[in-house]
């Protein structure tokens, strides 16, 4: 079978990227502006909250517990060597609340929901349902995108808190059951090490990640071209782009918080 190699000009690629960034920015801005325009589709937002929030709960519980337990398990051997096993609570606490809780929850929800949004909206595009919605006088960004953005941001915030808590419980289970650490000692160190900056970092990130997941998922869905094959492509691209963007934003938010509040 012969393959034809098509050479694409770097300028064309740059133009396509610039256009995609522009369209994504406009879509994101519009999804936010719609919160201040009527009608607000509260029913759709609640429905999406159920799908995104309640639907993601099992996977968030599982990953939260696992990550907390693994963090405790991996750090315990090193801490034990230096006689610092009592610090395990501090390590799990800082790790989960500022970094791993938001990040792992964001990545899990991105895998589950950015793909879901891209495939759902992509299917609606290829079957002309989005055009039908516009033809029926309804703005698809208001009806479909804004409720998803609102629901994802809102639910990811609480999912992250749940993941943080379960991570701490997972860490406690390992510290107490495997290393015999006293319950009070663990929970006191967990509590005492956290400062305002840590909690703020841990609560800002899910809001940003939720926005990234929903807008990226919707953007790739709504810009689907090329039939069912295009839907598959959009779904994959949405998960990859959302995950990469979450990692990048995570780094810069952490750096920004350090720059504002200083290092520990």
């Amino acid at each position, binding site marked *: 079978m012969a393959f034809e190699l098509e050479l694409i000009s770097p300028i064309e690629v740059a133009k396509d990227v610039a256009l995609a960034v522009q369209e994504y920015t406009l879509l994101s801005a519009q999804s936010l502006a719609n919160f201040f325009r009527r*009608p607000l589709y509260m029913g759709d937002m609640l429905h999406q909250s159920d799908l995104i929030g309640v639907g993601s709960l099992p996977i968030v519980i599982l990953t939260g517990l696992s990550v907390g337990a693994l963090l405790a398990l991996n750090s315990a051997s090193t801490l034990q060597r230096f006689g610092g096993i009592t610090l395990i609570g501090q390590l799990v606490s800082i790790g989960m609340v500022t970094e791993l809780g938001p990040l792992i929850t964001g990545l899990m929800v991105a895998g589950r929901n950015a793909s879901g949004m891209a495939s759902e909206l992509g299917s609606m595009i290829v079957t*002309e*349902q989005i*055009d*039908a919605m516009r*033809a*029926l*006088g*309804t*703005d698809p960004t208001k009806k479909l995108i804004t409720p998803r953005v609102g629901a994802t941001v809102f639910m990811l915030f609480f999912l992250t808190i749940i993941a943080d808590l379960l991570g701490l419980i997972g860490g406690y289970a390992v510290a107490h059951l495997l290393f015999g650490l006293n319950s009070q000692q663990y929970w006191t160190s967990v509590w005492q090490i956290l400062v305002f900056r840590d909690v703020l970092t841990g609560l800002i990130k899910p809001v940003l990640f939720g926005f990234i997941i929903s807008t990226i998922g919707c953007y790739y869905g709504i810009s689907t071209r090329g039939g069912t094959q295009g839907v598959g492509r959009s779904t994959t691209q949405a998960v990859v782009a959302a995950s990469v963007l979450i990692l990048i934003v995570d780094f810069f938010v952490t750096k920004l918080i350090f720059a504002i509040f200083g290092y520990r």
Partner: protein
Amino acid sequence: MPAPTLPSENPAAAVVNPSGYAIEFDNVSIAFDENVVLDGISFQLPHGETKALFGVAGSGKSTVLKLAMGLMRPDGGRIFVLGEEVTRMSEQELFELRRRVGIVFQESALFDSLKVYENVAFRLMEERISAEEVERRVREALRFVELEQTYDMRPSELSGGMRRRVAIARAIITEPEVLLYDSPTGGLDPVTSNTIVELIVKQRDVYKTSALMATHRLQDAFTMATHQFDKATNQMVVLPKGQHCDVPMSFLILRDGKVIFDGDGHQLATSHDDYIREYIS
């Protein structure tokens, strides 16, 4: 076959703007990459008339409908719908205009996550009309297309012809002033096609709705040109000989991005253009 009973013979849809046309294309062009689909086409759709749009696959029939609805923007030219210049309107302004225009998509484009009644009621629910009123009007619209029994069903449970009829019910529920049909009988069996043609004729003759219908099926358009809807018997009847084409029905043929014919059935039948003669033979 008698047509379904009329739900409410409210002639609201017959209210027309006394000046201008229902739809007017003025030198409209559009290209996708290097492919010029429409190359400066102009035509008018008078109020109350149904115009059948013909052309080979890819000739731009569906594009004409989407341009009229403002779902696409032309590269050049002007489009007027119900006296308003679609080509100059923002998306927000278009949402208002689209409430006065109904469209039936080629593949029906029903919302597959919603039930039949939610699909048909979509526009009414967006307008926050009371639940009782919505139910009454949805049942009327479904009765109009003889599908009241599908009220609680999902689109995936319907056949292609039933989906097309539900799409018609969704398009007519707000009694639009203009209807756009994109291949309404494409891929359907002759009996179902005839039912749909009858619904379109009824919409034309009873409600006086202006319509643009993209189709491949010349026989459907000729049926529409040679029949009228008889309110007394509630069915489509053939016009007496000599009165064929005496209904508000016209034909438009697209070829290579240009309009090569725009006229009534009689003019079409007597055309000397080789391509047209071959097309209609």
